[in-house]
């Protein structure tokens, strides 16, 4: 017999979800609402009927549904607000953490090198590899929409190179790095350089599992670039001002550029280099060497 309304039908089994936090039910106290009940007769016939009742804090009343689930009461479409609170890039973030753990285990420092297109990332990396001269073991993952041109330019400089072509995607993500890393023997690699797709916007949102982000900005790009693209500069460990051989031609005020970098990335160390003339490159190499000695 139905205990709720005494309608004389035997109810089927019930599941009473108790997952909701205590107090969820209390919210309903006193509120009157309708339920659709289904009963199954001894001969298997099903009956559905509606009845209404009120909740009060003292009377125990079982529900065949949890309040955390969607359930429509008769005659209404219930729109429920559900809290989610999940990072939108959770899939990427988890993969990035996996990459980070793997890199930690192999003792590899991963440097995510980002800049606008044409700031000189590839030239800077080529010079870096030349100067490291195999003394610090390195590997490179290069990202571009198309072509393996950058990887070609970096080959034969003493470090294995993997090119990732992203198709139409404007950034590298953790999955691409994971696939790239599979091609490399990171157990014998102290520094993994990741040359991201030339883009000052999108790569900022994607954690790759890197140890640090290095942003390159050439002297021809103007003093206010860090202010225009704060997300990418924010969180940079190093900002490399490149193409300093063009300094006088560019007319840029380095002090203003440094001030602007500091405003967005107060903790970043700024290095000035010309990969073409080699000026300042030794400072950068010394930094890499010190990182190589203290991987963590």
């Amino acid at each position, binding site marked *: 017999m139905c205990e709720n309304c005494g309608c004389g039908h035997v109810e089927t089994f019930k599941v009473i979800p108790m997952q909701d936090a205590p107090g969820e039910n209390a919210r309903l106290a006193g509120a009157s609402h309708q339920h659709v009940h289904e009963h199954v007769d001894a001969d298997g016939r099903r009956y559905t009927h509606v009845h209404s009742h009120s909740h009060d804090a003292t009377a125990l009343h079982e529900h065949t549904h949890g309040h*955390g689930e969607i359930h429509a009461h008769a005659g209404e479409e219930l729109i*429920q607000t559900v809290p989610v*609170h999940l990072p939108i890039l959770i899939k990427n973030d988890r993969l990035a953490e996996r990459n980070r753990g793997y890199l930690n285990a192999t003792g590899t420092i991963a440097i995510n090198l980002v800049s606008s297109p044409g700031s000189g990332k590839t030239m800077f990396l080529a010079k870096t590899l030349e100067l490291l001269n195999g003394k610090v073991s390195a590997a490179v993952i290069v990202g571009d929409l198309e072509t393996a041109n950058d990887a070609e330019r970096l080959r034969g400089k003493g470090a294995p190179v993997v090119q990732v072509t992203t198709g139409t995607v404007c950034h590298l993500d953790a999955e691409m790095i994971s696939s790239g890393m599979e091609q490399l023997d990171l157990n014998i690699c102290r520094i993994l350089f990741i040359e991201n797709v030339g883009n000052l916007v999108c790569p900022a949102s994607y954690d790759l599992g890197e140890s640090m982000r290095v942003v390159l900005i050439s002297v021809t790009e103007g003093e206010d670039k860090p202010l225009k693209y704060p997300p990418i500069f924010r969180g940079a460990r190093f900002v490399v001002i490149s193409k300093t051989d063009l300094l006088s031609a560019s007319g840029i005020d380095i002090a203003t550029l440094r001030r602007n970098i500091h*405003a967005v990335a107060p903790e970043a160390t700024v290095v000035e280099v010309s990969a073409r003339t080699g000026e300042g490159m030794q400072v950068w190499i010394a930094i890499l060497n010190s990182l190589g000695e203290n991987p963590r």
Partner: protein
Amino acid sequence: MHEISIMQDTMQLAIEHLQKSGGSEIHSIRIRVGLLSGVVPEAMEFAFDSLKAGTPAANATLEFEKMPGLFCCQSCGKDEWLDCMEFQCSGCGGLLVLREGGADLELTQMKIS
């Protein structure tokens, strides 16, 4: 730009959550966007409009909750919370440095049935 792929991730997350909750339709999606998230709400709207057809979110709306950042003036030391990137102190004209906050990119809540 990358808002398309971010919107794809958002919708995947939202639909997974809808199914877990036993619902069949998404009415609204609320997204928390930090100052430094690198995401433009207008571009997210555009991406959403082109992605939502034929999904349980086909009639849903997007809501954005913009999160401010804490800025500190290098000259007078004044702290202030601001909704947009600002580099000049409103008090003394000194250089403002962003101290904290801003990178949030979160699916905070949904209305479903």
